[in-house]
């Protein structure tokens, strides 16, 4: 819908540009003072013409009316949509500098990577986003999925998307929110409905306590990691930072600042300020043992 309106506007504006730009170019070329002209005369001094002025006032008014009507219609269609099916509800809370995600229907809480089922004509799956902010104003924008909306602390705002092609779509926070605004990245994974159901099931499972990483689990809690991060089914219930229960299922870390691989994870754990200077996770100053233990523990959080 946004796309159609945009094309209409673009074409109209292109037309205006060609016409007016052409007139300008023509005027400069045709009415240039020629050096061989009898230069001492002035051209006819024309003061104006009401008829001409009226003639060029009316078409712009008409164009504006057309655009205004198109705008009004599209605005209405988007802000008061009539969904073909019950939309999937996703609640997104913006933080500095990460995205908190809730899927209320499935009782899932995760972060930064949004999985959604693809929408086909036969099986439409609109996704309704409820947007809120835990601190300052943020903006949610995935360019290929059209349109954006702010996340403000005042109140909840709503947006909706309905992706029709599979793929991974990247987006950004669009409202300056601090030092790492540039690395508050969004990843929307649009997958076939079966894959989506699998992902949901995996996210719903609590983590498996693994005896070999018990030391890491203890180190995690003793270093107060749990005061900011939540790991389901444990004592760590902090909400200042992203939920880490299924951390290894995500393709990136640090809200998209780097791929979630071994080297980057080590760097992050060692000092987050290296990969994302200015982010709100401080250098936890772990000693080598704690570092190794927690690293091993985190790697089990699938």
């Amino acid at each position, binding site marked *: 819908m946004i796309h159609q*309106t945009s094309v209409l506007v673009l074409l109209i504006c292109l037309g*205006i540009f060609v016409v007016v730009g052409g007139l300008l170019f023509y005027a400069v070329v045709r009415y240039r003072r020629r050096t061989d002209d009898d230069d001492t005369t002035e051209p006819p001094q024309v*003061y104006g013409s009401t008829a001409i002025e009226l003639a060029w006032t009316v078409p712009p008014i008409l164009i504006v009316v057309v655009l205004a009507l198109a705008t009004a219609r599209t605005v209405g269609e988007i*802000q008061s949509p009539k969904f073909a099916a019950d939309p999937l509800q996703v609640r997104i809370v913006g933080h500095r500098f990460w995205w908190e995600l809730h899927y209320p229907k499935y009782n899932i809480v995760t972060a930064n990577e949004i999985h959604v089922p693809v929408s086909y004509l036969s099986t439409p799956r609109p996704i309704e986003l409820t947007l809120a902010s835990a601190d300052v104003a943020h903006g949610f924008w995935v360019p290929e999925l059209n349109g954006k*909306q702010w996340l403000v*602390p005042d109140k909840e705002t709503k947006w909706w998307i309905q992706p029709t092609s599979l793929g991974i779509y990247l987006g950004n*926070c669009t409202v*300056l929110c601090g030092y790492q605004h540039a690395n508050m990245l969004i990843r929307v994974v649009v997958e076939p409905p079966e894959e989506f159901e699998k992902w949901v099931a995996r996210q719903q499972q609590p983590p498996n306590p693994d005896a070999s990483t018990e030391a890491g689990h203890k180190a995690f809690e003793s270093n107060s990691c749990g005061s900011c991060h939540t790991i389901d089914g444990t004592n760590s219930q902090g909400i200042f930072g992203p939920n880490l229960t299924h951390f290894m299922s995500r393709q990136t870390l640090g809200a998209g600042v780097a791929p979630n691989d071994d080297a980057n994870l080590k760097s992050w754990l060692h000092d987050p300020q290296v990969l994302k200077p200015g982010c709100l996770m401080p250098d936890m100053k772990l000693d080598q043992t704690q570092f190794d233990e927690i690293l091993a523990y985190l790697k089990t959080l699938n």
Partner: protein
Amino acid sequence: MPNGTTITESGTELQPARPGEERGTATGWLQDLVFTVDHKKLGMLYVGTGLFFFVLAGIMALLIRAQLAFPNGHVTSPQEFNSLITMHGTVMIFWVAMPIVFGMINYLVPLMIGARDMAFPRLNAFSFWLTFFSGFFLFLSFVAGPGLYGASGAPDAGWFAIAPLTSSAFSKGPSIDYWSLSVLISGIGSVTGGINIMVTIICFRTRGMTLHRMPLFVWLSLVTMFLVVVFLPPLSAAQIMLTLERFLGATFFDAQAGGSAILWQHFFWIFGHPEVYILVLPAFAVISEVVPVFSRKPIFGYPMMVAATVLIGFISAGVWAHHMFTVGLNSFGVTFFAMATLAISVPTGIKMFNWLATMYGGKIRLELPMIFAIAFLFQFLIAGLTGIMLGVAPFDWQLNDSYFVIAHFHYVIVGGILYGIFGFLYYWYPKAFGRMLDKKLGLWHFWLFTIGFHLTFDPQHFAGVLGMPRRIYTYHPGRGWELWNLISTIGAFFQAAGTICLVVNLLWSARKGKIAGDDPWDAWTLEWATTSPPPDYNFETLPEVRSRRPLWDLKHPEDPDWKFE
């Protein structure tokens, strides 16, 4: 070629005194400038201050572009980048564009209306010095150091300072206070200046100059200053509220206390939108004087130009929330503001057509002021069209806060307003300094700057459409933005080169330029009826006018304007 009266070679007895030269000594010259209440000197001080800050803010732009030229850039840190973009925007608007606008109007309006000075000369000086010192106050923030809480110096929350990022919880230290207070003080200078200019235009026109015989420059200045007087206070009010919040714990924008962060935006943009008209109308004013003189015809449709200007002034009060389409307004709000935004394009487009019609049938002289004016017309056309596109709210929902918006407003401010300012410099510098600016250097300035302008801002439209948001200090490779950013950065250096040509020209021509004489361009408004530079008292005897082009009447006694108006 009858292009004026008294252009002679330098070295003859017609050596105009440079402003301030009367006292002779260097300290005398400085004293003269510091204590002056003469509108011409203050006008030049304003313009000089604006150009000085232009260079500073331009260097900031170069740093920004250097950081963004390549993905994962390391020219600046994230903190420095945020400060750079905030300072670049704030300084360019409040200490470059505003002072130059006030300077242009200060210098020209009393001359054009046949007055001896502004209505309140001491207030004029007061307004200037407030603007001047508040700029230095803002720059103090760079060296202010960490403040009490270890936060950075210069403000870094963007030039429109969205709440609640600016609250003391999220912006520790004094950086935002530097922003608020310096802009607040500069705003007082602007409002007092605006009142001065309006009173001068209303009360000091020379005999015979009815409102409908004023040059369009003066009309546009009147409407501009009306906007200043009415729409700068909302910004001051919002900043007072922000300062009360930061220092005394007031809760205006504090969502935790039930306040609304969006309210800040409403208050800011109620100022912010008219502000861009405050900046663009004087550019229109320059074009409205330059195009007729260099087409050798009167402006086409003077009454309609005035009406369109007044209409723009009024409608500009009602479009502010088109900066807020994506914050969560309801459908009624979005549609209303979209319609108002589209409506304002009609009087603006009309002005465009009037300028074109003035050129039609004329004998266009491609001197530097006209060259810049033609570039203005072309670039402002594009800027206006991208503005219409953004005014269609759904389009804005996709492209708000992206590089498309940055491209749009730089097209307006640089491609439009700045080119108008360049036209102003080339056209009236001879009047102020008695010497012409060098044409060759001027052409170098024009071409370097224009090539640079297009290299920088044309690709930004594409970057925006491809999804690049604004205010990011870096980006990952593979998003499709690299090429556009690189080209954009190269353009910035061209613009810098063009600016150097301009500055050299301005400085060199003051001493070595061709002597201009009273009326080098064969123009028709009253400022050309006195010497270049004008004496302190402007006119020996206050002139009396019978038409819109008093000098045309003099030069063409068989075909005077007043027979046809």
